Each structure stands twice: as C-alpha cells, then as structure tokens.
C-alpha cells in the first residue's frame, strides 16, 4: 500500500499531503522535509525511483509540481507511476487543463478527487468516468443546498 502522497512545487512548497498511515505530527514534518529535499536535488533525466529508509519513493514532475509517494517494499513502482498519471488525468478532467494554481486555490477539490480514487493507500476506483460522475454529483449537491439556504459558499 501507499504510505503517503505529497505534491510540492519546485521551490519546495507543499500543495497537498495525504497520509494513508498514522504518523505523529513530528514524523510528518520530518518526512515532508526529507523527501522534498531528496527529490528536488535529483537531476532531470534520472530514474523516478528512490530508496529511503524502508520505503520506495516514486516521484514524477508534471510542469511545476512534483507528485511523490512512498510505497512499501512489496508494491509495484511502475504501476504507481501509472497511478500518479491517472491522478493527474483526473485532475485535468475536472479542472480542464489543470495547472498548479488550480490546485492551490481548490485544494479541497484535489483532496476530494484523490479520495474518490484511492482509499487506504490502494486504488479503489479504476474508472475515470465513475470518479468524474461522483465529483459531479457531490458538487451538484453542494450547489443546490447553498442556493436553497441562500448562503455563500466558503
């Protein structure tokens, strides 16, 4: 299973953090610091896989964002690359030509999309259409309730 998924910019600013296992606050901060540093120094053409402590780190850079996850020893790194790509596709499908700003300003939506796709560190929905539909339904639920209560969204 995946232990965590991190998105960070080229300057090392965190854009999304998803933890699939319980870590203390201190551990989380340490992991973020260490992994971010490790990934950012990698030369552009190098291999996408790293070994760090007892985990395999898989990362890929999409435009200005690094998508990075920590896997257990038994996991398939190549498949994880596909998984990261699928997440990017889902984001792209939802936001239409997604860029880093979209994720900054709509981070909660990025989390919701991730939760439709992965639960407990494992892929739970492989259909892109299904995820899109769930997000649409949830969003429409939000809109109608807000309209009805005549209150602005956050």
């Amino acid at each position: 299973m995946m232990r965590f998924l991190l998105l960070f910019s080229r300057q090392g600013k965190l854009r999304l953090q998803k933890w699939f296992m319980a870590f203390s606050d201190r551990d989380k901060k340490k992991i973020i610091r260490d992994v971010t540093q490790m990934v950012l120094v990698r030369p552009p053409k190098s291999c996408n896989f790293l070994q760090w402590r007892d985990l395999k780190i898989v990362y890929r850079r999409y435009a200005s964002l690094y998508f990075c996850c920590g896997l257990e020893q038994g996991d398939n790194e190549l498949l994880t690359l596909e998984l990261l790509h699928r997440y990017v596709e889902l984001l792209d499908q939802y936001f239409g030509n997604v860029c880093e700003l979209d994720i900054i300003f709509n981070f909660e939506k990025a989390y919701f999309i991730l939760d439709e796709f992965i639960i407990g560190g494992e892929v739970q929905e492989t259909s892109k259409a299904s995820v899109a539909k769930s997000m649409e339904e949830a969003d429409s639920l939000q809109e109608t309730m807000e309209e009805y209560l005549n209150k602005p969204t956050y």
Partner: protein
Amino acid sequence: MPAPIRLRELIRTIRTARTQAEEREMIQKECAAIRSSFREEDNTYRCRNVAKLLYMHMLGYPAHFGQLECLKLIASQKFTDKRIGYLGAMLLLDERQDLVPQLVRILKNLIMSGYSPEHDVSGISDPFLQVRILRLLRILGKGDDDSSEAMNDILAQVATNTETSKNVGNAILYETVLTIMDIKSESGLRVLAINILGRFLLNNDKNIRYVALTSLLKTVQTDHNAVQRHRSTIVDCLKDLDVSIKRRAMELSFALVNGNNIRGMMKELLYFLDSCDPDFKADCASGIFLAAEKYAPSKRWHIDTIMRVLTTAGSYVRDDSVPNLIQLITNSVEMHAYTVQRLYKALLDDISQQPLVQVASWCIGEYGDLLVSGQCEEEEPIQVSEDEVLDVLEGLLVSNLSAPVTRGYSLTAIMKLSTRFSSVNRIKKVVSIYGSSIDVELQQRAVEYNALFKKYDHMRPALLERMPIMEKTATNGPAEIVQTNGETDSTILDTKHLPSIIQPASQVGLSIQSSAHFRHLNNLTMYSASKCIPPMTAYNKNGIKIEFTFERANPNPNIAVITIHATNSTEADMTEFVFQAAVPKTFQLQLLSPSSNVVPALNQGSVTQVIRVLNPQKQQLRMRVKLTYTHKGSPVQDLAEVNNFPPQSWQ
C-alpha cells in the same frame, strides 16, 4: 463582527506576502479571527473557517484548535459542511483529542439515521463509513481499557442490529468482530463475536465462510473453549469443495485437537487425508503425526493411525517421519508382533510408497522371527514362511519402484534375518550378488556383509541382535550418529554403530562437516602467509622511476604478485612505454597487460602492470628488466638488473 473572509481571498492574500515574516503575520491575524469565530459557535461560517484552517495547516502552521470544529461540521446536516468536516478530520485529528465518545456518537447516528439514498448500500446506511469508524475504534481501543469500555455498548448494538441478509451487513459484522477481538473487551462480548463467526460458518456464501475460518484461526489461541463449541461445523468444512476453505478448516482442526476429542477428530482427519488434493497431503500428514504424538490414547491406536497415514498418503510424508516412526515402534515392545504383521500385509498390497516400504523392511529385518512364528495377540496371526518373507524383501531389491535408499534398507533387513531365520545360504547368495552392484551404496553394504559371513562369522549374531530401546533425542540423535559413522565404514565391530545404517543421509552430513573443517584450515594458512612485504624501488634513472609492490597469491603461496608503478618526473610525457622482464630458469614469469603505455610528465600519473612470479624452489628472486619508450621525439631503450628484492618476497 464582519463576515470572515472567503477561502480564496485568504489564499490570494497570503500569496502576496513577500517574506516569511509577512506571511506569518497574516496567518496569525487570520487565526485569531477564526478562533474568536469558533468561540462564538457560529454555524454559518464554520465551514469556511475550517477550510481556511486547513490551508494554513498545509503551509505548516499549527491548527489543532480546529479539531473539535471538524466534528461539529461532520454532525451538521449540510453536505458541504460534512464534506469539509471529514476532510478536516482526516488531516487534523490526532491522539491529542479524546475521540472515542464522538466517534461512538457518529456511529450511532449513522445506524439510527434511517434511509439515505446516496450513502446507503442495500438498506444499510453508508457501510464504508461504518467500517472505517469501526477500524478507527479498533486502533484506539487496542490496549486501552477506558476506550474499550466506552465502546462496548455500541459494538454490541452494531453486532445485534445489523441486517445479515446481504453481504454488506456481513462486512460490517466482520469488522465489528475483528474490533471486538483486538480491544480489551469483556468476555460476554467476545463470546458474542465468536458466535457471530460460528453463524458465518453456516452461511451459504463461501467468502463469508472463509473469512470466518480465518478469524477463528486467529482467536483459537486466546478463546479456545469458545471455538471448541463450533468444532463440528469446522470439521464439516473439511468436506467443502473450495480449496482455500479446506485449507483453513484443516489448520483450524489441528489447532482444536486435544486429549478429549482426539479419536473423533482423527477419524475425520484421516478421512480428509484420503480424499484431499495432493498439495494438502504433506501438511495434513505432518499435522496428524504431531497430533497423534501429543494425544495418542494408546500405543496400538498410535501405530494404527500411523499405518493408516502411511498407506493412504505414504509418498507425501516428510523424510524424518521414517526414523521417528521406527523409534516409536521400537519403543512399543509389546506391539512388535502386531506391527510387523500389519506392515508385512501392507507390503504385499503395495510397494510403491517409499516411506512405508522403508519402515516395513526395517521392521521385518528386526522382528522377522515374530512374523514367521505366528504369535500375535492383537489380531489373527498370519501364516508365512521364511522363504515368502525373503521373496518379498528380494522383490523390493529388484523392483523399479524402489528408491536407492529403500534398496539399502531391504538389503540390511535381509542380512539381519540371517540370525533370525534358518535359510542362511539363501541370504548369503543374495548378499554376494550385490557385491558387484552398480549402486555404490549397495555394493559397499554387500561387500561388508560378505566379509561378515566369511571372516567375522563368530561376531555375526552379536552384531545383528535386536535393537535396544532408543532414547528420544530430537536434535542430539543425528549428531551422535554422524560421529560414529566414520568408524563404521572401517570397522563394523560394535552393535551400537548399527543405528547409523538406518540413517544413510547422515553420511552426507559427515562429509559436509569435514569439508567445512578443511576450508577453515585453509583460512588459517592464508592468514599466516599474507604478512606485509615492503615495497621497493627497482629502477630510477633518467627521470623514470619504477616501484615494485608485493602481494601473495591466494591459493598458491609460491607465487609472488608484483605490481609495478612507473612514474615520470621529466617535463615531457613518455609514450609507447613498454616494460619487459626476464627471470632465471628456476622461476616462471607471467606479465599481465599494462594500464597504459603513456607515462605522464611531472609525476602526474603512473603506469601500472602486474607481474606474477612462480618460485617453487624458494630461491632468491632476481630479475632483468628492459624498458623502451619514446621521450621528446626520440626512442629510448634501457636494460637493468633488479637484485634488491626483500627476502619476504621469495621466502
């Protein structure tokens, strides 16, 4: 108080901050505003505030004061609130808050909430969430008495109220059972859990049966008696068609065997052994042997059980069961006649299962006299003559079905009968035939037995007499036998060495030990030889210096390995550099290829080359070297003698 700013506004504002200090200031101001808003219990903007708090948390600032607010959001009726509330709970909650009462409340609301179409599955409200909460309760309650007590009621409620007609309900029940097992629950609750598992076992759905068996296996150590109550159901699962279920049921059955139910359980297990797939047979046979050893009600029962296993799954038993069984038989003195009779009858039926054949031939060799004398108390004695017995044993020797080990057993058995039977001539003939067998093992045995007949006949009766009762030494036994085995090969004088013959595998053990010993000695010689030999300068003229460094070659201490380092202290490179060497007749020389043939100027680098010199007569090392190179455009050639080798390089 003015309406709190929107999330997007906040994000935009924070991004305009030019320094870390500026950002921190903005964040602190906003945090204060959010905190006072929380204090005012403002429902309208709670969602917005928590969302902002999540953003600030992602930037790395402390946000734990929002944890309680997340729970309030979860409890709200609005979908947006719930969505942000759950996201906040996922990101912010940690062990600082006491969560169990809140989670219990949420779970209760979920169960009581009634029909909610978008979240429900087959009439049960949001099972994914229920299972997640149960899992969280499990993690929180593990090892913690207070939390466990707080959640006792809700667990009992979930366990009794959940609909079990569909898989969904069963999934929730399963998670509940796992939670009950892991936390410090009261015994009533645990019994409830095991009863749920028992009910699962009767379910038609094989997934549920499988899950039940797996869980019962985990709990059988701690709640043994409760699981015993379901023993008959578990044993019925042995007859299931599904392979995974059969395996789980088998493992669980072995875990449940005890002194009281051994006879009944063994009957079922033997029946299972008969009909199961080959993959199971080995494990099942081992399990049966273990259980029989621990709980056998009587010796005869034990021997019968083992016979049954050998005849039904004889080729699948583990190799060490043969010596174990032989030891068991030897120790049950009163059963010898019965045992040998049964084994003989089994041999008449089938000689293909090697462990059975090996045990049988050993027994016939030992107790053949009881067999032909027809004295058996346990059952009807059979009439068999010495010739018939020898026919059977010789049949084993020639049969294609017999493994080489089996043939060894059978030849030894025939030999042993020479002191128990009267037809010694026939035995002598058989033994002498095998003196020229292609199989080296058989040949050796036959030759030794021949020698016994010819030269040591007076010792034969003593040598081949009845085996004494063997001590049950699980690990010590083979080691002892290995030591005596070496002596057995040269002199077969002591009865006590006979045990070695029944364990031919141990001879291999001895050879492995001895080769390991030699390797160890090799290491010792290596260490003493590789003393440090000082390097020397062999040649130093016209700006070129050649240094020799020494090593000993590993397998052969007579070889000196010399590495030459050539350096150039002039201002011009030396190109086309070739190093040649000659040694006196008593030596042998091998020159390996150089690292390059350019020696860079001003000692900027060196050319290295390896020379191997074989010096079997350990004479003083001498060498003539010839150098050729091109320097500043002109070729140079030089000859020199090297006599200043350190004594350690050739001694």
